[in-house]
């Protein structure tokens, strides 16, 4: 089972907070608070949130937390 190409799916969303339902981006915002506001207003409860690294952050592979 090949994992979905998440990096491709998230291209162009660098620095954004994103809600994914599977591999579908259902909402994106510049802050986590704005994203959750969108999710609540759209009554989306089955999406999972992550933050897309900025282009500068793509310059290094993440090992731990930073």
């Amino acid at each position, binding site marked *: 089972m*090949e994992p979905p190409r998440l990096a491709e799916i998230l291209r162009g969303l660098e620095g954004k907070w994103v809600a994914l339902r599977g591999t579908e981006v259902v909402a994106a915002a510049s802050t986590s608070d704005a994203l959750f506001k969108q999710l609540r207003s759209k009554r989306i409860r089955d999406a999972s949130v*992550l933050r897309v690294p900025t282009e500068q952050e793509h310059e290094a592979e993440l090992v731990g*937390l*930073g």
Partner: protein
Amino acid sequence: MAERRPFPWVFPYQEDPTSGATHPRGRFVYRPVVSITLIGAEGPDGPEESSFHALVNSGAERVLAAPGVARQIGVTPDRHDPTPLKIGGETRLVHPADVTLRLAPEPGLPGWEWRAEVGFFSEWTSAPWQVLLGQVGFFDQFTVTFSRSALQLAIEHAERFDRRFGSD
């Protein structure tokens, strides 16, 4: 209501956002990441809950989360009980709060719920995932099997390990 799917639950690894064309060397990076729901305070429409991409991290002693997670689920970490953690050579403080966690085999399906202390960071930058699932609070709930070659992880009952390896 649908019944909970029996274990094992198998999850594919997820590609890191910094991978392939966005990786500095073009390397494809895959990680054991699952969607976890954190359930906090009672709100006007029921318990406040949100789901986050979470790194399954056997090297973490506990479940850790970004400060924004606490805000979204309406819990207030105990500011008077900080634990200093060394991360990447830096010391960061985490503040505890008891929350309910839920893992489901797929979004929308019934999941497994448990209570755990979560350490909320006072500061969190750059990591795409907002939750780290560590030894106490996650690995003590399940038997977790990783396969890098299959790019999958499997979640089973905690006692499954004893049945498989007779460690009682």
